[in-house]
């Protein structure tokens, strides 16, 4: 089996419009969550979100591109441009024929849906723009990345709610690992901070009105975010031969299904995914120094996740660090695992552990070292990234420094 390394990373999210700015914000424990700006915000109960601010689409795309790119596709392309530029790869010939793009996404073009439902239902229009379908389809982002960068290998979109990106990256890892292709573009994106997108989440009554405070006893729910995270996964020898900078090595993953409930998390399902990722990576639990938690800030997730980690790691659970960066960038739903992988890269490469901000009161049911409020400097051998989705679909990735 081939070793798989990350040779490019890109992002845009509420913490920053690129990787450097995002990691700096994580190091400083900055919060990207703020008052939501969207049409009819006054009709929403939930009025905060991790929105991408100061973003001017016209400076990144021409008019014709904008008529075809939903916001989630725009974010994806911005992050892909950064990641592929950093990797230094140019896709042509044999490499282009084999390399593809696998992305995670949950909602598709929600702002496109929202705008056009308004047009036909609210405004009573009987005609919509011809590009509604190619704009809103979940695979639009992956397809536009394939077209912009000439990726002609296996390409598709994975949709597993909040675990979409982790499932996508696990699949891309598997393809490089198994020798199908020397490189894959992978990650995920989401943009559903529009009226309908927030309203739908509001209905579940799991959203916080003031802040995302994962693992804190006074946590009161999750906060949505938006953006994208894109990576270049490359076969180790291929990367080494061309002298590429290696950000981290992906050493394993596991996916499990709870097969129990459509919204409630399950401790055994989460624990099997965490243990499975370590087994796949052939590491001992003691080698894991950091876990980027799913850590949504809901009552159910955080205690279930803490219990799963305690079960899997035993005594070592008290020694490892586990933080939820959702406290800073919000929950990017289908794109969240991709942005969170950046925190894992920072841990294994730079020895900087991103904090869980907004932490106010210890919760005996979440009694792990959750790196409260301030980043920490600590050498880490292996980092795990957890994602446990609605529908009970779990995916955990394992990274190591190179």
């Amino acid at each position, binding site marked *: 089996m081939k070793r798989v390394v990350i040779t490019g990373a890109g992002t845009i999210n509420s913490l920053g419009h690129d990787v450097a700015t995002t990691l700096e914000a994580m190091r400083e424990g900055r919060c990207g969550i703020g008052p939501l700006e969207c049409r009819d915000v006054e009709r929403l109960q939930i009025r905060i979100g991790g929105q991408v601010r100061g973003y001017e689409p016209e400076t990144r795309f021409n*008019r*014709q591109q904008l*008529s*075809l790119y939903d916001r989630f596709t725009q974010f994806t392309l911005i992050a892909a441009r950064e990641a592929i530029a950093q990797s230094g790869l140019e896709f042509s010939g044999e490499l282009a024929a084999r390399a593809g793009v696998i992305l995670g996404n949950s909602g598709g073009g929600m702002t496109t849906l929202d705008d056009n439902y308004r047009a036909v239902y609210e405004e009573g229009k009987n*005609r919509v*723009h*011809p*590009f509604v379908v190619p704009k809103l389809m979940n695979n639009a982002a992956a397809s536009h990345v394939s077209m912009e960068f000439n990726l002609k290998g296996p390409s598709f979109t994975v949709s597993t709610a909040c675990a979409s990106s982790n499932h996508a990256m696990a699949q891309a890892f598997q393809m490089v690992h198994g020798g199908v292709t020397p490189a894959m573009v992978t990650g995920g994106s989401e943009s559903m901070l529009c009226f309908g997108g927030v309203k739908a989440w509001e209905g579940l009554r799991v959203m916080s009105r003031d802040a995302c405070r994962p693992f804190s006893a006074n946590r009161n729910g999750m906060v949505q975010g938006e953006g994208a995270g894109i990576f270049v996964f490359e076969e180790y020898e291929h990367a080494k031969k061309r002298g590429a900078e290696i950000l981290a090595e992906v050493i394993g993953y596991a996916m499990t299904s709870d097969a129990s409930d459509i919204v409630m998390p399950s401790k055994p399902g989460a624990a099997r995914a965490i243990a499975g990722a370590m087994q796949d990576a052939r590491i001992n639990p003691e080698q894991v120094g950091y876990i980027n938690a799913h850590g949504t800030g809901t009552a159910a997730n955080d205690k279930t996740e803490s219990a799963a980690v305690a079960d899997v790691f035993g005594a070592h659970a008290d020694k490892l660090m586990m933080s939820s960066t959702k406290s800073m960038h919000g929950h990017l739903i289908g794109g969240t695992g991709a942005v969170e992988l950046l925190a894992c890269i920072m841990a294994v490469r730079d020895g900087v552990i991103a904090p869980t901000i907004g932490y106010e009161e210890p919760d005996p049911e979440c009694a792990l070292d959750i790196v409260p409020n301030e980043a920490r400097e600590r050498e880490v051998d292996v980092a795990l990234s957890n994602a446990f989705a609605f529908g009970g679909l779990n995916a955990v990735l394992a990274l190591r420094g190179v």
Partner: protein
Amino acid sequence: MSDIQNRVIAIIAEQAVLEPSDISLTSTLEELGIDSLGLVESIFAIEEEFDINIPFNANDPKESDFDISSVASIVAGIGALVKEQS
């Protein structure tokens, strides 16, 4: 007629990223660099502009009851539809 012609040419020019003065009545959409997606977008824009329905089926443009072989034929077709549907 000239009002309709100017408005149609403005829409086609915008789609082709050209100045209206660059568009002649004998131009074909192909010559102007308008592809199949550009064509349906132009038809949508014309329908919106004139509040009409254009009987155009992208599956088989030649069989549609609407002639798109040149700018002149499009302008003539719109003129007829505006009269018919107003």
